[in-house]
């Protein structure tokens, strides 16, 4: 007999790359836990289904995980839409659900059974403002925003705090997740003459964006976020990536054993270097496992309470939740140096990083 953790994750379609990392991360956590004897001797099984990052698919999948597979906890290795739709089902069926990296602010608002182990966009946006305005001392900033929930919530957080750090937003541009050609934006940004650029995006948009900015002769600092956080970003942007800073959850040079161990174990398992999404999948699974161990029963209410009371060190830092189920942890700042991600700073200003409570 096994104890089941359910997971919805995109394995096909446009989000398949992130889905794969998240799944491997979660699998790693389960393997590690099983090697330590599972949950009080019972083996843990990770049941996962491909949701193509679509709400339409994630709703029946949530029902299936709960009704058919009778999972104790669900985790989402998927994007916002799919996660948001599934969270309602988990909430109404009384099964705890942890979002590994989906950013949509409403996810945790589904109710008290829903948690998130990654930052809401706003929090990270605020960290970005502090990084640029205070730590780098740059004041004239151009904001380039990815037009989706991720980019928008980052921009909202950034703009809310920009003035506090003396930042003057000289111009703002939006682009869509499908864009890879940024020629027009580059031309315009050049004429804006900024001191720094705050650009949201994923590695596959940010890679081309950064290299085109550099080719266009713009050499001011570019500040990104966890969406950049992949080896792939450096590969795409090549030498242009040098010096790019991001706010994220994973510290490559971490001295924390959990993080170090994760980074090396993941590379063995996956055959490529760990990234933020992988670490997030790992963290979410770890939180679920720890809670089940602590609850010691198959009572979902007890497991939920255990999750709410989480206080543990994971690959993405020290995790605890606020009343809404939002994670409280430090923001890592990473920089590209010599073709790899490295430690730059940690932002631990808990006041700035307070997650929303409602």
């Amino acid at each position, binding site marked *: 007999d096994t104890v089941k953790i359910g997971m919805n994750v995109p394995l096909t379609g446009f989000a398949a790359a992130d889905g794969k990392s998240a799944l491997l991360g979660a699998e790693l956590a389960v393997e590690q836990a099983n090697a330590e004897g599972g949950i009080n001797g019972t083996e843990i099984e990770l049941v996962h289904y491909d949701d193509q990052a679509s709400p339409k698919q994630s709703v*029946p999948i949530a029902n299936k995980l709960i009704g058919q597979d009778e999972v104790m906890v669900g985790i989402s290795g998927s994007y916002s*839409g799919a996660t948001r739709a599934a969270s309602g089902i988990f909430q109404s069926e009384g099964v705890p659900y942890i979002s590994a990296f989906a950013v949509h602010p*409403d996810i945790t608002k589904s109710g008290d059974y829903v948690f998130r182990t990654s930052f809401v966009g706003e929090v990270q946006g605020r960290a970005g403002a502090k990084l640029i305005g205070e730590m780098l001392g740059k004041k004239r900033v151009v904001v380039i925003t990815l037009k989706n929930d991720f980019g928008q919530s980052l921009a909202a957080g950034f703009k809310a705090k920009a003035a506090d750090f003396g930042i003057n937003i000289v111009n703002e541009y939006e682009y869509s997740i499908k864009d890879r050609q940024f020629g027009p934006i580059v031309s315009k940004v050049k004429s804006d003459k900024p001191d720094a650029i705050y650009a949201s995006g994923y590695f596959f948009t940010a890679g081309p964006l950064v290299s085109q900015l550099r080719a266009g002769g713009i050499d001011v600092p570019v500040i990104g976020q966890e969406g950049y956080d992949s080896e792939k970003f450096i590969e795409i942007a090549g030498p242009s990536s040098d010096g790019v800073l991001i706010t994220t959850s994973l510290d490559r040079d971490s001295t924390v054993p959990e993080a170090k161990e994760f980074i090396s174990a993941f590379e063995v398992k996956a055959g490529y270097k760990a990234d933020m999404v992988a670490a997030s999948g790992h963290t979410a699974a770890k939180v679920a496992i720890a809670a089940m161990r602590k609850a010691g029963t198959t009572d979902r209410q007890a497991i939920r309470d255990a999750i709410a009371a989480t206080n543990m060190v994971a690959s993405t830092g020290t995790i605890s939740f606020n009343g809404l189920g939002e994670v409280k942890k430090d923001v890592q700042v990473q920089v590209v140096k010599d073709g790899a991600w490295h430690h730059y700073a940690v932002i631990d200003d808990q006041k700035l990083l307070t997650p929303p409570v409602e």
Partner: protein
Amino acid sequence: MLGLSGYEISLITSMGIAVIFALSLNLITGFCGQISLGHAAFYGIGAYTSAMLTKAGMPFGVGLLGAVIVAGLIGIFIGIASLRVRHDFLAITTMGVGFLFIGIMRQWDLVGGEMGVSSIPGSGLGKSGFMFLVLGFGVLTVLFSLHLKRSWMGYAFDAIADDEDTARVVGLNVSHYKLAAFAMGTALAGLAGALYAHNVRFIDPESFGFVESITVLSMVVIGGIGSVFGVVFAAAVLSVLPLWIQFIDEYKLLLYGGLLFAMMRFSPGGLAGLVKQILRHISSRKSLQKLSGGTKI
């Protein structure tokens, strides 16, 4: 209830919604011959309308009605604009309408913009109650489609689908018929969208994009364009196929794409065509033979 699990109920509900949605496109594309590559926009209009109305405190029924009316009205408006273009030009124009819809919704903060609309109220009927409601609407849509096909309106649609210019020459007010098809098809799509919104209870622009328009068109074409039962069957199967073939994991979409292709390549008439082919094989030989006897005047 009925011994159905929550999962099965949600599958059947999804199927039912897909059936209504596919039949709504079948009215426009199958019956009246007007190809649309942007039908998901009207699905989305229905979903947003009902979501916003019920979130504003209106009862569920008002939400549904509002969805039908708003989607139908916008459908007529788009229909009027689309009267100028034909065939593939129409297909791409409707595709453009789809993209424009998404573009507007993304930007429109009143309806959540990129963030979409969360916490949409449920139907208040419970899971299985909602399933029965969806099935009820599904059955009504099927009956309506069957009636339409047999009626003189369906007859006129056949003519228009075949050759618009000739249809005019035999006295059909082609524009009015096309608009009627658009109005009915988009209103029904609005209904399907509203049901979707209250089922998934979270909507965002991306849920009503090009992929969704293509998906519903493939349901219609695979079912057999213009056929009612073929489309019902294809919509039911295709809507849950991705969930059924979970076991092949990352080969899922490959199989799905391959199936779409293979179906068209080997049975271009869709499922309905396949059945008809078999039936016709036996009966129609005779009528041809009769004529080959030659005629003497």
